[in-house]
């Protein structure tokens, strides 16, 4: 029989926790066979591990409470932190979280990035209570004139009252290809939708309606020549589509 190293307390624990190399494991077993007191301690420790799993493993199967999975928890955060946090949160979902219909060209990658930026902007500003927009609907003419000038395009704001949404106002945002406009709408229950508009993105081929979803934010988006539009909301797909069709018809008569 080969000379065994002395068995340490740490090794007895490592034996219990299955953290020993196989050869040493066999040696510890041989040791325990002749040391009843240590064998008893090891047996109890192993039972403790087992009992901990019995007691707490059911937590793994529980439905997650809304407050630990819902990005709404972000709403309590200061706005300055919120943008980075929401961006990180959405990025965490990864590309896998998006329903991609076409992912084989640079343009569609660009379109997906556009939709994601729209979702992030929605998640950041739609919960805002005091400053949801920079310019309110009461100054609609000024709002449209200002954003048109900054985007270098003649913007139009769709009228969504027929589908239950009133204009709240809009704001200017930085986009990956220059300034972007965000218009916010709200229904009678305070449910908000945002329309994210960019211009001058080059000769994007016209795309059909595309749908993306990340966390609770659904987005319908389409690119049309130099312009791109994305309508975002935390409502179900069918309801959002209903509004998106109205937006599309009004902007592309």
């Amino acid at each position, binding site marked *: 029989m080969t000379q065994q190293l002395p068995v340490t307390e740490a090794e007895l624990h490592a034996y219990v926790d299955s953290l020993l190399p196989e050869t040493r494991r066999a040696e510890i077993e041989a040791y325990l066979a002749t040391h009843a007191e240590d064998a008893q301690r090891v047996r109890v420790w192993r039972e403790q591990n087992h009992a901990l799993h019995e*007691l707490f493993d059911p937590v793994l199967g529980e439905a997650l409470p809304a407050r630990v999975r819902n990005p709404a928890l972000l709403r309590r955060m200061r706005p300055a932190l919120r943008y980075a946090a929401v961006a990180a949160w959405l990025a*965490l979902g990864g*590309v896998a979280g998006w329903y991609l219909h076409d992912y084989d060209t640079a343009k569609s990658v660009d379109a997906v990035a556009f939709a994601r930026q729209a979702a992030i902007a929605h998640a950041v500003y739609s919960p805002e209570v005091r400053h949801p927009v920079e310019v309110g609907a009461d100054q609609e003419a000024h709002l449209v004139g200002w954003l048109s000038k900054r985007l270098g395009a003649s913007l139009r704001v769709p009228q969504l009252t027929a589908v239950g949404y009133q204009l709240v106002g809009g704001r200017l945002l930085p986009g990956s290809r220059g300034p972007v406009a965000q218009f916010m709408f709200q229904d009678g229950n305070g449910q908000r939708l945002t329309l994210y508009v960019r211009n001058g993105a080059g000769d994007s081929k016209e795309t059909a309606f595309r749908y993306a979803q990340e966390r609770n934010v659904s987005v319908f988006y389409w690119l049309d020549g130099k312009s791109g539009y994305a309508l975002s909301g935390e409502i179900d797909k069918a309801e959002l589509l209903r509004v998106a069709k109205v937006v599309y018809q009004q902007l592309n008569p």
Partner: protein
Amino acid sequence: MDGTGRDFVQYIPRLRRYARALTGERARADDLVQDALERALVKFHLWQPGSDLRAWLFTVMHNVYINQLRAQPAGITYGLDDEAIQVATRATQSDLLEVRDLQTALLRLPEEQREVLLLVGLEQMTYQETAGVLGIPIGTVMSRLSRARERLRALLAGSAVHSTLKVVK
């Protein structure tokens, strides 16, 4: 981004399991997880892509937990709430008293020993990973683990003698 993103969400149940065992209370555990997730979101740029995301999340939660403990007035002990006992009864077919003993005994361990015991015994981290999460030397992990297991053994052996157990509110 693909794998890690899904993993982040996948770790939430494990964070909850650990928090439940650590605090003994459902509501307090979810408070802890929620605070830890918010902290992780704010600090996400500090995470090194490619490093162990699970270890990082547990580290963040450990730091949040320690800060919460420091913020508490000394002398407050947390008893078992009803939900914890309900979970326990679902968890095992064995006698409720026995289960309650384990939960109670756990809560009687010093925080530092309980953390080590749970990271190793429940979360099944290596000693090295546990040392990293708690920010302590591996030798300290081993001594705390040893004391935790022996103390738990003594507590449970003792409670077997006293068959009626009072839950401290």
